[in-house]
């Protein structure tokens, strides 16, 4: 999906370090020397064992925390400015819907904050819910939906204000394998339709390979990028992709890199 045009990168990280200094404990190097450039329209997965800093990197990009040192730009701006400009939508592992709002009102939440008119909000929420195939569920409350449906609402909410970047922190981690595979397909179809850039954190190697055009392999203590794997499987991808020999080859490749990173660590 990388097209060689002159677009500024969506994410530009140079020598980014993040050190946590908990009071009364040794400082923890969460991220060390991160270099990464993401072009518009890419689907990037961050993969690695727990503690490798993949969520931390996502949160740095989302300006929920700030880097200790290094240069980090989102859409050629400081992450803080990008956040104020509402450049990205976030999806967490838990759907994080507000219980007291109907599904439609949940999707409208960012639109309310960003000052859309009520008519615009309603129309757009409906449009987004149809995108995630929940068009008939606008008036339900979140507790009336299954986990997979709730997560689709969270995606609709993140996409509602048309951000240029979607940050997803293990969004399907809590779902069963069957639901997860279907959600993967739906996410890819949304991505292809919206041309949005996606940063996707996951524990699952097949999920990362299936979705991404590049997989960023990370290793822990200190968290760093050890390898970036190009996944040159053609889009649109479908159930057959999962049976493609190249798919298996890439899964093995990523697994090998993950193991190497683990062995280096000892």
């Amino acid at each position, binding site marked *: 999906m990388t097209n060689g045009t002159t677009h500024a990168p969506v994410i530009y990280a140079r020598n980014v370090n993040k050190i946590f200094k908990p009071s009364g404990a040794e400082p923890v190097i969460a991220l060390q020397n991160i270099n990464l450039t993401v072009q518009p329209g890419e689907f990037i997965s961050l993969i690695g064992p727990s503690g490798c800093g993949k969520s931390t990197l996502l949160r740095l990009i*989302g300006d*929920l925390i700030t880097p200790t040192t290094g240069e980090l730009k989102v859409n050629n701006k400081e992450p803080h400015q990008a*956040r*104020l400009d*509402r450049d*990205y*939508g*976030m999806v*967490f592992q*838990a759907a*994080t819907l*507000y*219980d*007291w709002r109907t599904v439609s009102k949940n999707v409208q*939440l*960012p639109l*309310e*904050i*960003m000052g859309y008119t009520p008519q615009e909000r309603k129309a757009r929420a409906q449009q987004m819910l149809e995108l995630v*195939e929940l068009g008939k*569920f606008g008036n*339900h*409350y*979140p*507790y*009336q*939906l*299954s986990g*997979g*449906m709730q997560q689709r609402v969270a995606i609709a909410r993140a996409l509602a204000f048309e951000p240029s970047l979607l940050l997803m922190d293990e969004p399907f981690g809590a779902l069963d394998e069957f639901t997860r595979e279907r959600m993967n397909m739906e996410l890819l179809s949304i991505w292809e339709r919206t041309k949005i850039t996606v940063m996707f954190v996951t524990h699952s190697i097949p999920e990362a390979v299936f979705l991404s055009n590049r997989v960023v392999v990370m290793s822990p203590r200190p968290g760093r990028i050890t390898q970036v794997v190009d996944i040159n499987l053609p889009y649109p991808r479908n159930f057959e992709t999962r049976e493609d020999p190249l798919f298996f080859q890439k899964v093995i490749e990523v697994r090998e890199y993950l193991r190497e990173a683990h062995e280096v660590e000892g």
Partner: protein
Amino acid sequence: MAEAVQTTRNQSSKTPIGARLRYYLPTILVAVGVLLVWELAVRVLNIQQFLLPKPSAILEAFVNEIRLFVTPGEGSILFQAAGATLWAAFGGFCLGCGAGVLVALITARWTIISEAAMPFAIAANSVPIIAFAPIMNNWFGTTNPASKMAIVAIIVFFPTMINTVRGLTLIDPRQLELMQSYAARPVKILLALRIPNALPYIFSALRVASALSVIGAVVAEFFGGQRAMLGVFITQEAASFNFVRAWTGIIMASIIGLSFYFVMLLLERWLMPWHVAFRNTD
């Protein structure tokens, strides 16, 4: 889209009357049983009226008061007293809970105030505030309803404030991060997240406060007040050996307390149909 949608909350209103009756049957049986045992015990053991009157006698006296109340030209001191106590309880409830929520909103906005005030509030909440009733009688005047209202207000203030502060501050960090990611302003976070998040906490405080307010009003009236107040009515009737009448006062206070509690419960259901306690997911 083969995913199942859970049953909606409307289901409870569709339950057949028979099933509902079966649900409440044990409660009704226990109540009837207790009254029967009471009645029989008083009759068989020949218990003196000043120790424990028969429920049938209390009921008779109560019905008589209702008759007096509805007859034009007549009047019921019991119902007059009930009105005064209800006014003291309700007025104090509104003042105390209103102030509690308001102070909680202020302290949640400026965490320094909250950190300074919370230990005092929690300590004050464990103090028997009713002990201040004689002081309030001095401040406002024994016969002034404001002295009872003030006690009630102080009693309900602390649990309301403490619970509201909790509800405003104990928030899932992810939900706050979501607001941050939208660069939402603090006012919007307060209105769209903190206050709805606090509602279940506030209502659980209001339910407790509704019961406390009636207890507070009646007990405060024990320390003196106008004749037509339930606390005064009960103490005076008991002092003049009209125990059946004293018991009608107790029954009346119970009816007020229970009704108040149920009104709160209904309000809660009506305002928070999404809340976990009211979901029908069987």
